[in-house]
């Protein structure tokens, strides 16, 4: 059931409600081949093969310390990695777990700074305003980052990544510090933006349900190796956890991550399903 990954063929990722932008390059936006990373004695990545097609939304799942952030950092160009192991074509942008905004620059300037290398001042300002409008924060342009809520700050961070029009957007657990409701809104926002811009996204997460809900392809990283891969063409609206294939994938992914299912309560009567004693005193009130 848990299929070990082979180096993914680049052009096989056409899915139900995604697909590359018509103008996008045909080849993959990123190819990772036999990629190894070692910090001292510890080998964090032990031969990773991964290819990301234009417009593909890939979730990289793993426990803390499995090497998923290391892989992302290599793709983002934040670490020195051999070019033959990690090849990225086109522009990348990163949104981190923390918003990492410059607190001494107003929101608008924070987004403009991502464009510092290109365009004239007016063009940068125009694009930053547009990006902020896209994440629904046009009216917070002049705010200081420290005055934003956690969700707002994370949306500014997303706008800052989007404003450069990346071919590959790298999201490093960007929702994990948000409360549950804000997280749902952020999921919807990311999908909306992705549908509109059609960039490839690599979403690093440790949330299985988030990965299942958002990604075309879920890649499980375990102890420096890809241990499981799952692709789906199901529309995102039809990925309820009750659906057999989603439930099966969820079970497989959890298994690949080493999470064992909870055994049934041995006290429960196997026929009636009742517990031997009423243990919930408020039950009579209902």
């Amino acid at each position, binding site marked *: 059931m848990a299929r070990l990954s082979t180096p993914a063929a680049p052009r096989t990722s056409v899915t139900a409600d995604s697909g590359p932008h018509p103008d996008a390059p045909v080849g993959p936006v990123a190819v990772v081949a036999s990629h190894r990373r070692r910090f001292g004695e510890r080998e964090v990545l032990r031969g990773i093969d991964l290819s990301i097609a234009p417009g593909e939304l890939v979730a990289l799942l793993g426990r803390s310390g499995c090497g998923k952030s290391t892989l992302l950092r290599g793709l983002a160009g934040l670490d020195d990695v051999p070019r033959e192991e990690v090849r990225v074509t086109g522009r990348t942008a990163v949104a981190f777990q923390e918003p990492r905004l*410059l607190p*001494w620059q107003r929101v608008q300037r924070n987004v403009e700074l991502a464009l510092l290398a290109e365009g004239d001042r007016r063009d940068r300002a125009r694009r930053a305003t547009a990006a902020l409008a896209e994440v629904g924060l046009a009216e917070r342009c002049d705010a200081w980052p420290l*005055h934003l*809520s956690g969700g707002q700050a994370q949306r500014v961070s997303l706008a800052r990544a989007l404003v450069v029009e990346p071919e590959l957007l790298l999201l490093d657990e960007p929702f994990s510090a*948000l*409360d549950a409701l804000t997280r749902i809104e952020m999921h919807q926002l990311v999908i909306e933006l992705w549908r509109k811009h059609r960039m490839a996204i690599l979403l690093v997460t440790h949330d299985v349900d988030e990965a299942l809900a958002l990604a075309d392809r879920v890649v499980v990283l375990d102890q420096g190796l890809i241990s499981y891969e799952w692709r789906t063409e199901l529309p995102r609206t039809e990925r309820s956890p009750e659906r057999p294939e989603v439930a099966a994938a969820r079970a497989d992914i959890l298994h690949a991550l080493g999470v064992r299912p909870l055994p049934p309560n041995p006290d429960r009567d196997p026929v009636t399903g009742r517990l031997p004693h009423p243990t919930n005193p408020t039950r009579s009130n209902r």
Partner: protein
Amino acid sequence: MSSSTITEVPAAAGIVDPDLPRGGPPTDPLRVAAPARSRSAGRVGRALLPWLSPLALLVLWQALSSLGVLQESTLASPVTIAGTVRDLVTQGLFGSTLQQNTLVSAQRALLGFAIGAALAIVLALPAGLSAAGALVIDPPMQMLRMLPHLGLIPLFILWMGLGEQPKIALVAFGSVFPLYLNLVAGIRGVDRKIAEAATSMRLSRWQRIRYVVLPGAMPHAMTGLRQSLGVAWLTLIVAEQIAADRGIGKMIMDAREFLMNDVIVVGLVVYMLLGLLTDALVRLVERRVLAWRA
């Protein structure tokens, strides 16, 4: 019981407002702590409040003097001192008025402080930004800062005589270190995560320094600036009293010769006011530079 818990559910859900800023309502989190400030009548009252206890101390001082507990020959009363101020302003003492003396002292302090601060910035930038710079600049700075700079007075007089130079040089020397140390700490303590975000945005080294490192060091720089200013005034007061032909220090030394404790107190009060004034100026600058911290 159970029905009340049900009705509470929507309210509880309403609390989880993702757009509620972390510090409080969106406008000004300080307002939450001090809501009375928004009313102007209350604001005036509150502004006067901190002056009450100093005023009470002044009244107590005057009362003790009037009752004869405090001898005029030991410490003049506030009323006497007020008269002395008037005399010093209109007639002066030994040919120079209080304003002239104040101006001379302030010039010395500010010029010395400016030189010291400039030197601190010039030294702290390479020491904070580059490993090589730190290796060259930091060890001698760490040694020199342990040198009690007031002990340098004889040497400075030997080198520069009794004019303005040794005083200004001493003030400059003293005020270099607080700003230097704070600035280096601020530059080195830059938030690595934000610096990394700047790298991921492909900002050049110079752009990272310009937009991340230097603004990030500003809170430290402001602390250093205020500490340096304090050292500058302290140094000036000592230096002026060793050897000076003009200035507040000279006025105090003359007063000592003639047992005029009222003039000495006036000199000290002038030092105090100058210190408060410059500190308030730095705080004003700080409010503007660090507006983002609000």
